[in-house]
């Protein structure tokens, strides 16, 4: 219950991590997209690419700062809320966190050069500063997630009487979950960024701003989210296999499987009832889980009953969160497949642009943003709630790790208030930034202004060089 120190500490951690991650994904994804847009501008000198680059870099500046301050909160919170955890395992996690700090350094330094260097650097040098930002953002994801994956599968540590006596420094980086989990997060970041960018420009077009600026912004974002989707499925599957092997109870919770059995069914959706072990409203596919995990119907899958009831994860939440993530991932993948077919077909017929821009397609494209964000947050809920009651799987419980200080209720209330205030202000600022193509662009290029265009515009624009570019990006 809220009000107990343990619950307050958990809620505060979950809340501040979720807040952080929502902004941090753009710090990972936007630099890669900027490399594309600014690179195109360098090569073509086309003002539309420059306008997109300028706009996105302003957005990145704001999101990056919010990501940085909310991330600083996290590094303090580990000590403030989970002192016993840090006291025991801080040394074990030292290497990934230290490497992470250097990645932040690199990111912050080059972001400074990038954002404020428009006039001080040559265009080419300016574009080059994006590379260290993108690479170190990517590395920071990998490092931080390996720390989390070590908490899931803590290998390479010897303890005597609750004290770490020896720890392999490289253990977090080489653990079985490190690679799939961190790649999965990286792809998630790219999908979220791409999806949200696509959504912003799709909404702009739905409101009638069908200019080159919006089409290209939409195209770049959509290609990023759709191209990552199939890879994400493969990597997510790898992650699930690691979970099956090392955290069987988490897998059982994800799949709402109460009893160990062969011919295990796959349950899609539904509300799991911990008292009866039944899932209401779910769709059951016989033998599905055994087939997926073992490639044969009689594979035995361990159920929740390998643990006493008190040590089982919060199955209803974990199951729903898992299905939300996979459902969103499959939906995005479906859209990717459909669009790929349509694009091939339109190419044969010589119809341009390859991606249709009529209403239903724009709505579908816009939905990839919220879907990816929901999948990403749900994925974290799976990882974290599925590990319960452990903070370090099998070694230390969340209860043992928590602070015993009495003031956590205040700090939770303050955190929620401050963050909600900051988020509200941020939304206002982002809305101000989302004003469409800069007026200078329309005048300069003599191109289409922000007014609504007639529906044939798509077909007519086929000859335009910029549509050819969108097509290039789409491939």
């Amino acid at each position, binding site marked *: 219950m809220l009000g107990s120190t343990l619950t307050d500490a958990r809620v505060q951690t979950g809340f501040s991590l979720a807040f952080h991650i929502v902004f941090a994904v753009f710090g990972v994804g936007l630099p890669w997209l900027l490399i594309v847009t600014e690179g195109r501008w360098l090569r073509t000198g086309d003002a539309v690419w420059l306008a997109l680059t300028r706009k996105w870099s*302003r957005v990145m500046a704001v999101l990056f700062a919010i990501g940085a301050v909310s991330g600083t909160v996290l590094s303090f919170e580990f*000590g403030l809320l989970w002192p016993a955890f840090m006291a025991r395992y*801080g*040394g074990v996690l*030292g290497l990934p966190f*230290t490497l992470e700090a250097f990645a932040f350094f690199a990111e912050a330094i080059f972001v400074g050069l990038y954002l404020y260097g428009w006039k001080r650097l040559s265009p080419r040098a300016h574009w080059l500063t994006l590379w260290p930002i993108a690479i170190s953002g990517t590395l920071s994801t990998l490092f931080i997630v390996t720390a989390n994956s070590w908490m899931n599968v803590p290998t390479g540590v010897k303890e005597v009487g609750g004290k770490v006596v020896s720890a392999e420094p490289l253990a977090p980086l080489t653990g079985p979950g490190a690679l799939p989990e961190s790649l999965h997060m990286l792809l998630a970041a790219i999908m979220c960024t791409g999806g949200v960018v696509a959504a912003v420009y799709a909404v702009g077009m739905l409101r009638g701003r069908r200019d080159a600026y919006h089409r290209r912004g939409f195209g770049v974002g959509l290609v990023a989210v759709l191209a990552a989707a199939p890879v994400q499925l493969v990597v997510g599957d790898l992650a699930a296999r690691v979970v099956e092997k090392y955290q069987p109870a988490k897998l059982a919770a994800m799949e709402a499987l109460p009893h160990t059995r062969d011919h295990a069914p796959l349950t899609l959706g539904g509300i799991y009832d911990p008292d009866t072990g039944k899932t209401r409203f779910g769709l059951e596919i016989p033998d599905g889980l055994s087939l997926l995990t073992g490639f044969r119907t009689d594979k035995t899958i361990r159920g929740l009953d390998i643990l006493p009831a008190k040590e089982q994860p919060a199955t209803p939440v974990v199951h729903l969160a898992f299905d939300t993530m996979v459902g969103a991932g499959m939906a995005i993948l479906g859209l990717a497949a459909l669009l790929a077919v349509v694009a091939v077909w339109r190419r044969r017929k010589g119809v341009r642009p390859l991606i249709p821009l009529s209403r239903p397609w724009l709505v579908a494209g816009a939905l990839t943003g919220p879907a990816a964000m929901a999948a990403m947050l749900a994925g974290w809920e799976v990882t974290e709630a599925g590990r319960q009651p452990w903070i370090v799987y099998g070694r230390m419980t969340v209860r043992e790790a928590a602070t015993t200080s009495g003031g956590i209720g205040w700090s939770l209330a303050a955190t929620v208030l401050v963050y909600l205030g900051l988020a509200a202000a941020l939304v206002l600022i982002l809305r101000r930034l989302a004003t469409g193509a800069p007026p200078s662009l329309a005048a300069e290029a003599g191109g289409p202004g922000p007014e609504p265009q007639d529906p044939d515009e798509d077909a007519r624009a086929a000859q335009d060089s910029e549509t050819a570019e969108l097509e290039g990006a789409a491939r």
Partner: protein
Amino acid sequence: MTAVNLLLAVIICALAAYALLAGADFGAGVWDLLARGRHADRERRLIAHALGPVWEANHVWLIFVIVATFSGFPSAFGLIARGLELPLAFALAGIVLRGAAYVYRAYGEGAAGPESLWSRVFAVASSVTPFMLGVSGAALATGKVTADSGPLAPFSSAFTLVAGVFAVTVTAFLAAVYLCHDAGTDPGTEDLVPVFRRKALAAASVAGVVSLALLPLLYQDAPTVAHRFTERSIPFVVLAVVCGFGSIAVIWKRRYVLARATAATAVVAVLLGWAAAQYPDLAVGTATARDSAAGAANLHALLIAMGFGMAVILPAFFVLLKVFSGPEADAK
């Protein structure tokens, strides 16, 4: 030198970098808060301009210090975090609000409240944070911080409170000295140089007075550290005093580049004096560096990673400072 001592040295260096770089950023916020009169708006703009490209990178030094502390001395970190939870939580709130206010002011175009609102938030948060960090550092010397000493313990002695004030005045001093030089590099702001020169001189005098008040309190409230201070830290004190007065002299003579060096040296000398007296305790009476250190293999891995990391980061940092020093010229 053992791995433990080497790691301590790295942490102190990082702390010094944080004090000199981010410290000046905080101090700039203090001047933002105090800006009055007909120049006020232009002063604020100069401050924002000087901060822009570097504040995020400067701020990472703190993250580095925290990460190095919990990686290298995990059990002490758990204890310190518990004992200092209140001042650290306030410092944290200051860091969050300050960073957010800074970008909201710069990019918000008034969409989320007037610039003056965010300017206020930025300025107040900039002053609160160094105060809280000063209190935290001083509290570690008193021996009154333990895992269950209660949230108010760090505030319960005059020494820690005055140390907090000292930290604020020192950051203000650094910022004023740096800004004297920055203002002079652009013809548009040259007339602000005397304004910041006056501020630098005032801050130096106040910092000197506060440090005089701080010394007897050190002996009263932190006897263990005070004893070691007498034994070990006199050379650093001498250096700090010489550079402190030296700074006043060179600022008086309007030699602002040299003033940066003397001011920085004075601040580093104070920090080293404290560190020397604090050694080998992390929190006096409850945690020494050696007892709370992580395993040897982990420390070695950390140090190796830090060596490689710094080899990449320091040149990049230098480039950053270099590109943004001097007036804006158009791209070559």
